[in-house]
């Protein structure tokens, strides 16, 4: 009987020997990573344009864009931050200096790696920004992994013709569990958008 008791104690100890951190606590904030082109002079750009929808990439649906109250809230928050950084919102027809692009990747069993700042092919006339912009994946390449992320890119349109390239001069990757309620997820995303600008003090028109 005593041996049995000891064996039970031993088995219990086996399963209690390593303590994991409180993952729920870590789920309360999204991870925000930003990068920028060190050759870009951010105060030389004055205007920007932004789509009223968010690109949507998922292996769960064929839907290619996200347009509802939540996406509108996210876009509006981005506009607020751009305004606070002294950039002026204009229509795409007014030849903005910058394009702001958002992509949401959801439940894709792929990993996201970033090929920073350059798009090699430049064509005119057919797509949203007047260039053939790889909407679905932008500068991000994707391989097998499970991930959910909001990607924000700021693209240099002002110097596109001179560069013969579309150059991403700033990007933000917002990742995390995204496993809370819709309202809580939205709150976290909006807070993360603010954080992405807060940690990018160089991102100002003047």
């Amino acid at each position, binding site marked *: 009987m*005593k*041996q049995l008791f*000891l*064996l039970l*104690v*031993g088995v219990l*100890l*086996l399963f*209690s*020997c*390593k*303590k994991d*951190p*409180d*993952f729920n*606590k*870590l789920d*309360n*904030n*999204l*991870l*925000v*990573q*930003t*990068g*920028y*082109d*060190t050759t870009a002079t951010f105060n030389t750009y004055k205007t920007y344009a932004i789509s009223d929808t968010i690109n949507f990439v998922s292996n769960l649906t064929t839907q290619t864009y996200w347009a509802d109250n939540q996406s509108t809230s996210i876009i509006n928050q981005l506009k607020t931050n751009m305004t606070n950084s002294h950039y002026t919102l204009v229509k795409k027809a007014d030849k903005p200096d910058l394009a702001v692009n958002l992509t949401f990747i959801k439940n894709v069993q792929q990993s996201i790696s970033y090929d*920073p700042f350059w798009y090699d092919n430049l064509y005119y006339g057919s797509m949203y920004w007047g260039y053939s912009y790889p909407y679905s994946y932008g500068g991000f390449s994707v391989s097998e992994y499970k991930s959910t992320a909001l990607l924000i890119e700021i693209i240099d349109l002002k110097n596109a013709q001179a560069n013969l390239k579309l150059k991403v001069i700033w990007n933000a990757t917002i*990742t*995390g*569990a995204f496993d809370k309620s819709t309202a809580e997820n939205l709150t976290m995303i909006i807070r993360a958008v603010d*954080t992405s600008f807060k*940690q*990018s003090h160089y991102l100002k028109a003047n």
Partner: protein
Amino acid sequence: MKNISLFKLSIAISMLFLLGSSSAWAQQGNKLYFGVGYNITQPLNNTFTDKTGLYGGHVEAEYYIDKTYSVGFNASWNTLLKYIPTKTYPLQYEAGDITTDMYNSVYNMTYTLFGRYHFKQNNRFKPFVGLALGAQNTEFADFYSIYQDKQTAWGFIARPEIGTVISISKNNKTNLIAGLDYFYGTNSNKNIGINNIQGVEFKVGIQFNLERRY
């Protein structure tokens, strides 16, 4: 998983040793004890995880050579966790920053052989001093968002200890044991500036003599 496997192996060896040798020690007094216990750890030399670790334990087998000296095998573990509130860090290899909260984690799994000197034998309390020497496997980890960075390192560990055995049964077949030790492990992780692992550990446990009487 490797840690768990080694741990299971050590448990299995200890149990086989204890159960298999029970009859051999019959009628010779209480020489062989099996113990389990709880450890609290206070790291001493790093800021990576400088919070008191409440998640630790040990199993051990102790053989009394005579009434004064004992030797044994001890497997112990502790997890040290430290929560780092949300903070912005510059990226190491490219222009940019990252903001996140995180947990720093150090998980130590040690396997030691020990010797103890017991001072008094005619009292319920039997204080002892001891020294344990062996190997320690340490897992250094950062947990942030849904990610983790993890590295492991083996090292040598030395652990002097003081403590007392408290008899709580007839014939000393069941004892409580309490002790305090200092440990020094050579496990290092240069990425986070840790050259060794030091700390003090308070432990309390229970030990049983499994030898059968005929």
